[in-house]
């Protein structure tokens, strides 16, 4: 604080100066004012003074008024004015100190909001503390609840602390850091004895860092001067400590959240890696999502797709001859052969259901048909191998249907299932089971045929209408013969038009014509099981007549 000077009060051009000068001028005796060193301040100096009257401030002479007895009155007046001025300055200084403190806290808060690293916050706090509360050294100690250890994230100034001893002396911290107290420590001799602080330290101040009732640690400052710290310092340090504690706590929570979020993300990634084997990416992408983790309950998409079902014929009797292990191995290797064919034809497997597969071809029914034909060829190859090993050949039926399908996620929050909801799936499954009925390996619905480009290399036999159980509409069933082995395929190609003619006759109840046709085909290709099926039917109707309201459609009484 700048001293109050007589010069500033009475020696400058201001109201006081003007009044004093006016007063002096009215006196008969020469009167003037000097500072404590005899330098003139106001009035004309005269060599023949009689008296000298001091102007006092806190019992200290800061100047004189010289002249006769009247000068004494002026000196008293000035003493009074100086006193008032000094009081004003003192008050002003205190307010300014408070304001400075406010500014420090304000700036500190602002800095804290820009920092999210706990250690950086600690460093910032200590820098601010040492700056605002002049100290020779400082440290922040934090108690790590998890490791039950003290850490010193930040230190500043001279090496007046022995960090190892500080860290390894939780007793001290129980006193300082974990007491939740803040104080100017009067007796620091113990700390010196234990070698925690250097011998030349004279003063120590500390403030607890705490959030609510949890004590996190402390800010400790030391100085080499005796009584270096005041109550105002302690108050400021406590404020800094509290602000810093909250910021560190938030930063730690933030770090924890980030860490947990990262762990969750990694976990989700692992789940995703696992689940994509079960829930194909194509399925997820068809929902317009990138990964499984983006998929929400209730997400769904509707699309025209071709659904393909394949099923191992007589699997039950086949599996009875195998141990569970062999069974598993058999199904796995069977699926492992067919899976790639589906995928390479732009399809994806929606479900493995034991010995059957449900696959979806979202783009073009041609993909489904190509896949089915290749799957059949794969089965032929598999059977060649089985033959060498004296195993029974495997027969599989494939059925497909094209229509709209809703693909989506069902279940609840805890378990989400990729699901397909649609009559299309149902119909495709029924068509697959018709392969047993018609004894044909590959059947499709008229709907699939309808979506096919007319210029294709597929060859079809029309098997007439069926009415599926529980359905009103008739469904035209078509067999694709491209999947037969070369010999069988050739034979069927030769009789293709005859077969279709016989089928037309059959539908029109011209059973004699139909019989002729089917018999011709049968004699040339006795292994054609579908022809045998219709031949038997024709014979039956010839023998027994057709039922009432016979439409030519097969009525399916079972699923």
């Amino acid at each position, binding site marked *: *604080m700048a001293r109050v*000077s007589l010069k500033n009060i009475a020696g400058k*051009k201001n109201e006081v100066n003007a009044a004093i000068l006016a007063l002096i001028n009215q006196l008969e005796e020469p009167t003037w004012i000097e500072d404590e060193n005899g330098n003139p301040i106001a009035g004309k100096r005269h060599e023949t003074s009689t008296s000298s009257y001091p102007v006092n401030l806190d019992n200290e002479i800061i100047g004189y008024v010289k002249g006769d007895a009247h000068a004494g009155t002026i000196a008293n007046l000035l003493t009074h004015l100086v006193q008032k001025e000094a009081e004003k300055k003192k008050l002003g*200084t205190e307010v300014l100190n408070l304001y400075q403190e406010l*500014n420090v806290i304000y700036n500190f808060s602002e800095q804290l909001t820009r920092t999210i690293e706990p250690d950086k916050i600690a460093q910032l706090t200590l820098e601010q503390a040492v700056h605002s509360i002049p100290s020779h050294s400082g440290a922040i100690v934090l108690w790590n609840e998890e490791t039950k250890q003290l850490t010193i994230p930040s230190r500043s100034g001279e090496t007046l602390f022995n960090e190892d001893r500080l860290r390894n002396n939780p007793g001290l911290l129980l006193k300082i850091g974990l007491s939740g107290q803040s104080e100017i420590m009067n007796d620091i001799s113990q700390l010196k004895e234990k070698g925690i602080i250097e011998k030349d330290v004279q003063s120590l101040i500390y403030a607890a860092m705490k959030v609510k009732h949890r004590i996190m640690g402390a800010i400790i400052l030391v100085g080499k001067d005796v009584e270096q710290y005041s109550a105002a310092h302690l108050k400021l340090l406590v404020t800094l400590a509290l602000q810093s504690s909250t910021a560190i706590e938030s930063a730690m929570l933030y770090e924890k959240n980030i860490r947990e979020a990262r762990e969750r993300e990694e976990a989700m990634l692992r789940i995703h890696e696992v689940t994509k084997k079960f829930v194909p990416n194509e399925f997820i992408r068809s929902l317009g999502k990138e990964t499984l983790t983006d998929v929400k309950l209730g997400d769904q998409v509707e699309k025209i797709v071709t659904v393909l079902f394949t099923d191992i014929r007589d699997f039950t009797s086949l599996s009875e001859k195998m141990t569970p292990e062999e069974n598993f191995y058999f199904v796995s290797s069977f699926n492992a052969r067919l899976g790639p064919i589906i995928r390479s034809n732009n399809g994806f497997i929606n479900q493995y259901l034991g010995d059957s597969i449900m696959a979806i071809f979202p783009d073009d029914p041609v993909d489904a048909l190509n896949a089915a034909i290749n799957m059949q060829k794969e089965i032929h190859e598999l059977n060649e191998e089985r033959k060498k090993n004296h195993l029974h050949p495997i027969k599989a039926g494939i059925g497909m249907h094209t229509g709209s399908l809703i693909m989506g996620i069902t279940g609840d929050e805890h378990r989400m299932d990729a699901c397909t909801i649609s009559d299309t799936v149902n119909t495709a499954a029924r068509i697959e089971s018709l392969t047993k009925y018609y004894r044909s390996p590959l059947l499709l619905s008229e709907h699939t045929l309808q979506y096919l480009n007319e210029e294709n290399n597929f060859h079809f036999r029309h098997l007439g209408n069926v009415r599926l159980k529980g359905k009103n509409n008739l469904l035209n069933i078509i067999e694709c013969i491209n999947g037969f082995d070369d010999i069988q395929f050739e034979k069927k190609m030769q009789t293709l038009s005859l077969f279709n003619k016989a089928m037309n006759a059959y539908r029109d109840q011209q059973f004699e014509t139909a019989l002729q046709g089917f018999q011709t085909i049968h004699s040339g290709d006795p292994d054609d099981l579908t022809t045998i099926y219709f031949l038997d039917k024709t014979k039956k109707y010839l023998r027994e007549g057709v039922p009432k309201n016979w439409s030519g459609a097969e009525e399916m009484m079972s699923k």
Partner: protein
Amino acid sequence: MERKILIVDDEAHIRMLIEQTLEELEDEDVEFLTAENGEIALDIIQKENPKLVFLDVMMPKMNGMEVCRRVKKELGLEDVFIVLLTAKGQELDRQRGQEVGADVYMTKPFDPEVLLKKAKEVLGIE
């Protein structure tokens, strides 16, 4: 040469704080003048010709921006160094401060050290 600093703020404690901050300049024969509103400030500026003015922006009657604009643009007193003061969180567009011709722009609570340094710099002390 006598040097004058004018402190303009409608809040008495801010005037006092600034005066207190600049206290040591008293010994350098710097004279402090104060004004509690823009109109008085304008009057003092014309009569006393201060070298430096600390001017609060948010004031009743005539705000600091307007005082600054008149001093710099209308009265042509471009040598008067004007420091505009505004509360943090109410920062005005710096560009607006420049437009009215302010030399420096500071926010309250100001850092006393910065304020004193600026005053010394403008007055050519030390």
